[in-house]
Structures are given as C-alpha cells and as structure tokens.
C-alpha cells in the first residue's frame, strides 16, 4: 500500500474519537482540579487550573478529618480481597471437577451454574438478610461478623460467572500434563494445585479482577449489610456523604478524587488484564 496522506475523512474520524475520549477523561480531570479549589471558586470558574491563589488543600483536610476514608479503604480491600480469594478457590475446584470427572449429575450441575447467573441480586437479598440474621451474622455490632455477612453473599453472586469462565479454560488444557503428574504419584488434589492452578493462571487473573471490582463497586449489597459507620466500605461511604453533605462541593470533589485516583493508577498498570477480565463473560470462546 502506498503511504497514506493526511486525508480529510481520517482527520474527521480522529476528531470524533477524540471527542468521545474527552467525555470519558475530562470529567475526571475536572473533578480532580476542582478538588484543590475553594467551594465558591468551583462555582465561579471550574475550568482553570488550581494554580497560585486558587490552590488550596482545605477540601482534603476536611475529607480526612470528617470522613473515615482510610478505614473505608481498609474495609473495602478486605471485603473484596476475601471475596476474590474465596471465589477463585471454590470456583477453581468446582470447575476442575466439572471438566475432568465424568459423572451422572454433571450436566445438571452445569445447568445450575448457568442458571445461577440469571438471579438478580434484588430477588435474593431479603431472604439472605433474614437467613444471616437468624444465624447471628448480619445486623450485629461485631466488625468481623459484619464483614462475613457481606462477603458470603458476594461470593455466591460471583461463583457462577467464575465457574463458566474457568471451565471454558480448563477444558482446553491438554490432559497429558495431568497424566504425567499422575505417574509421579499425585492424587487429584495435588494435580489440581500443582498442575491445573499454575496452568490456569491467566484465567484465574480474569476471574480475580472481575470479582474484586464487582465487589468493590457494588453499592446495593453494601447498603444492606454495612450499616454501622465502622463497617462502611468506600462506595457506602460515598453514598452517605452525598446524602448528608451534598452541598459541600469542594468536599465532594475531594472525596471523588480520593476514590477515583487509586483506581486510575491500578487501571493504568493492569488495564490489559482488567479489560479482559471485565469482558471475559461476553467474548469467551
């Protein structure tokens, strides 16, 4: 092909693409730059950079004084980390068994997994809450129990998806490696941990990212299970903030920045895996 000239249609295409990119990137830039301005300056002129006299850290000072942001982060990471770990372990074990073992109920169980994707969280939350209350997990004052009360339903909500992704991957693994492990004297459990797990790493990463982000961002379940201040996770804290202090725009901007920037940093480094993880359910196969 000959060298392409700078054509009109190509630049129109780039212009459109850049315009949409602006809509996804600029709002974040805008909120971060305004988090460094006093409230009244945000309303007067929100587009200039916070330089010179405009610059202030007052919003952040207020955010750290009034909001328990660190504790919310700790809770969020603990909950999502646990959800992610438990989902990987349980879904990994189940997928391995569903792919490699031949038994009567196999197809039925797989159908149960697929059907499990269909339940909206709205349709299970009330009985789950009642069930956990009767066990003494939900609605208690104990921090550990509160964490447990939200981790368990979130694990259940992610298992179906995880099993579907993992079975798809494990099915494609050559059985020869398992055979040689077997020759070395490994039982099925050892085969799982020593052969399957290392080989399935990319798919585990996908599942891990998906379930972590899903749990981290899920406000609905948090509204039910994390009602005491010390148990609040990040999204729950933001929701609380917006209903109580919605008019302190500087504080809002600072809080949004504090939540978005860490995610942005992680995203920049792991974007390849994150994009793959989030779309895996749709483009599998």
């Amino acid at each position, binding site marked *: 092909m000959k060298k392409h000239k700078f054509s009109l249609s190509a630049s129109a295409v780039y212009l459109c693409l850049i315009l949409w990119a602006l809509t996804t*990137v600029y709002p974040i830039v805008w909120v971060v730059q305004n988090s460094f301005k006093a409230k009244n300056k945000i309303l*007067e002129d929100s587009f200039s950079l916070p330089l010179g006299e405009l610059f202030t850290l007052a919003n952040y000072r207020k955010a750290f004084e009034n909001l328990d942001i660190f504790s919310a982060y700790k809770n969020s990471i603990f909950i999502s980390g646990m959800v992610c770990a438990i989902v990987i372990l349980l879904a990994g074990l189940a997928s391995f068994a569903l792919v490699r073992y031949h038994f009567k109920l196999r197809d039925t169980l797989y159908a149960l997994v697929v059907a499990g994707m269909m339940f909206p969280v709205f349709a299970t939350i009330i009985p789950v809450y009642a069930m956990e209350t009767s066990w003494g997990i939900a609605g208690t004052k104990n921090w550990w129990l509160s964490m447990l009360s939200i981790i368990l339903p979130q*694990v259940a909500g992610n298992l179906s998806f995880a099993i579907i992704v993992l079975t798809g991957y494990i099915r494609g693994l050559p059985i020869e490696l398992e055979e040689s492990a077997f020759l070395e004297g490994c039982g099925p459990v050892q085969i799982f941990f020593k052969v399957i797990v290392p080989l399935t790493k990319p798919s585990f990463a996908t599942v891990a990212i998906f379930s972590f982000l899903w749990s981290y961002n899920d406000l609905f379940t948090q509204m039910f299970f994390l009602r005491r201040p010390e148990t609040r996770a990040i999204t729950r804290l933001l929701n609380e903030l917006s209903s109580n202090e919605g008019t302190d725009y500087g504080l809002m901007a600072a809080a949004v920045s504090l939540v978005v920037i860490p995610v942005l940093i992680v995203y920049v480094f792991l974007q390849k895996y994150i994009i793959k993880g989030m779309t895996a359910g749709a483009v599998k196969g």
Partner: protein
Amino acid sequence: MQRMQYRKVWIFTGAHNKNCKNENAGGDASGIPEKEGVHMGANIYKNKKPLLLFLLPAFAFMIVYLYYPFFKNIFDSFMQVKELGISGEVWNDPWYSNYVKLVQDKNIWTSLKNTVIMTLVTIVGQVGIALVLALMVDNIRRGAKIFRTMYFFPIVVSATALGLLFNLIFLYDKGMLNQILSALGKEGLTDWKEEKLALFTMMLPVMWQYVGFYFVIIVTGLNNISEELYEAAAIDGATKLKRIRYLTVPLLHNVLCTCVVLAVTGALKVFDLPWTMFPKGMPLKSTFLTGTYMYYQTMIVKDIDYGAAIAVMIVILGVILSKAVNTIFKEKDY
C-alpha cells in the same frame, strides 16, 4: 489423540506401581484398562470420592445463597414480613394482596416505564455509539489502544463515585454544564434535575459509563473478520460505507446480539448511579427504576414483603425482556 493416550496407559500402568504413593490413585491403578479406547483421563479421575470435596463448597454456596433465597423470596412476597431480617410466618390476607397493590401502585408503573426507556436507551445509546466508535477505530492506523484504554476507564470506577461526579457536573448552581452553557452565551441556568429533564440527566451517565464495554466487545468482533473479505469487496468495487453495510454489520450480527442481551440485562440491574443522583425517586417520585423502587420500598418505607413482590416482578420483567430480545435478534450461523 485417542490412540496416543491408549499407548500411554500401558506405560503408566507399568510405572505406576513403582511411583504412586497416593492411596486414591492406587485404587485407580488396579483397574488396568481392558477395553480399547479407555483413556488415561478416565483413569486418573475414575475414583469419584474427591468429587464431593471439589464440588460441595461451591454448590453449597450457590444453593444456600442463590437458589434457596430465590424461592424463599417468592414465598415472602405472599407473607407478612414485619421487619428486615425476620422471616414471614403469616400469609397475607388475601395471600396475593401485594400483587394487587403492585398493579394499583402508580410508582410501579412509573418505574416500569422508566426501566423500559432505560433498556431502549442502553440498546440504542450504548451499543449504537459503541458500534460507531468501533467502526471508526477499525479504520485508523494509530492510537487504537489508547482510545480503548480511555473508553473503558469509566467502567472501572464505581458508579457511586460517578454519581457524585455527575451531581457536580449537572449542578444547578453553576455546575460544569451550566458554566459551559453560560460561556456559550445562554442566559439563565438550567435545572437539570427538574421533572422534565430528570430522566435525561439520570440516563445519560448510565449510558455513557458502559459504552466502552461494548466498544471493546465489538472491536474484538471486528478483529475476527478476515482482511481478505474486505479486499475482495474492494476489488468488486464496494465503497467504504457499502462494505460496512453489507459486510461488517452482517458479520457482526452475533456479536451485536450478545451486546444487546448484555445491555438489556444490565439495564435491569442499574441501581448505584440513579440512587446516588436521584435518591428516593426525586423529583416527585418520577425517576424510580424497578431496582431503585424495590430498594425504596424495602429500606425506606420498610414494607419488606412488598419489596419482595417487586423483586419477583423484576425477575418476570427480566425473563420477558430477554425472551423478546432473543426473538427479535436471533443468533445466526454463517
């Protein structure tokens, strides 16, 4: 393949006696394959005892946390549940009273209407914009990766944070949009959250957030279309637009179907962003979606069994909508 494994089976039975220390596996080995075509996999995994260990935890979770509550919820919708966290014990009088209430409740109709609009907006807006952007990216030489990274970013951010962000953008008292508009010479301020504009203000961010998601799916689909087809079409004299119309779009049919199904199921699950921007169906209960109304009845009004009935309605709505989508956009084999 089959044959090779067969061969290995014999090697394995020889080696096995020396090396295998595992009891379970030892049990397996006693059955030296007699028939042809019995392959090794079947041998390693012949002992079904570990199955329970592998399957029980995951399936116990799903039964206890998904299947049981799902059916319990249907029962709850016919019972009196006085408080969140307590199971219903007495039947409603008449037992279907919640469903009578459902039909008569004005807010239910608002929420159904809004949810259907939301579904259409997500199909047309998200998948449509994503398709256009994907077709554009497919035609450029440089920067496709960067665009992908930027377009996908909003999906990673929690919808609650985006809700707060859009509250600032749509602020009446000189938020970002009103500042832009007045800089462009518009007089007076627009109240984006008043009744007429509320739905627009609520749906725009929801739509915007997930465009990148469908964009990635469609771009992946586009990459799977072979370059030769385009070359052949170009030789036959098809213009760029014609190639898109008669080649790309038909070949993307199944990918687009997947997107539409995902958009519909996604639209039914929306909760975080609307609830952050328009809590309690503000203004004047006009912005309820089925999900946010279910939450409102359960947690704010504290009519738990009615909340359960709304949840049942959400399930039924989901089934109807996905059936409709499946009949309209049937997957095809090419």
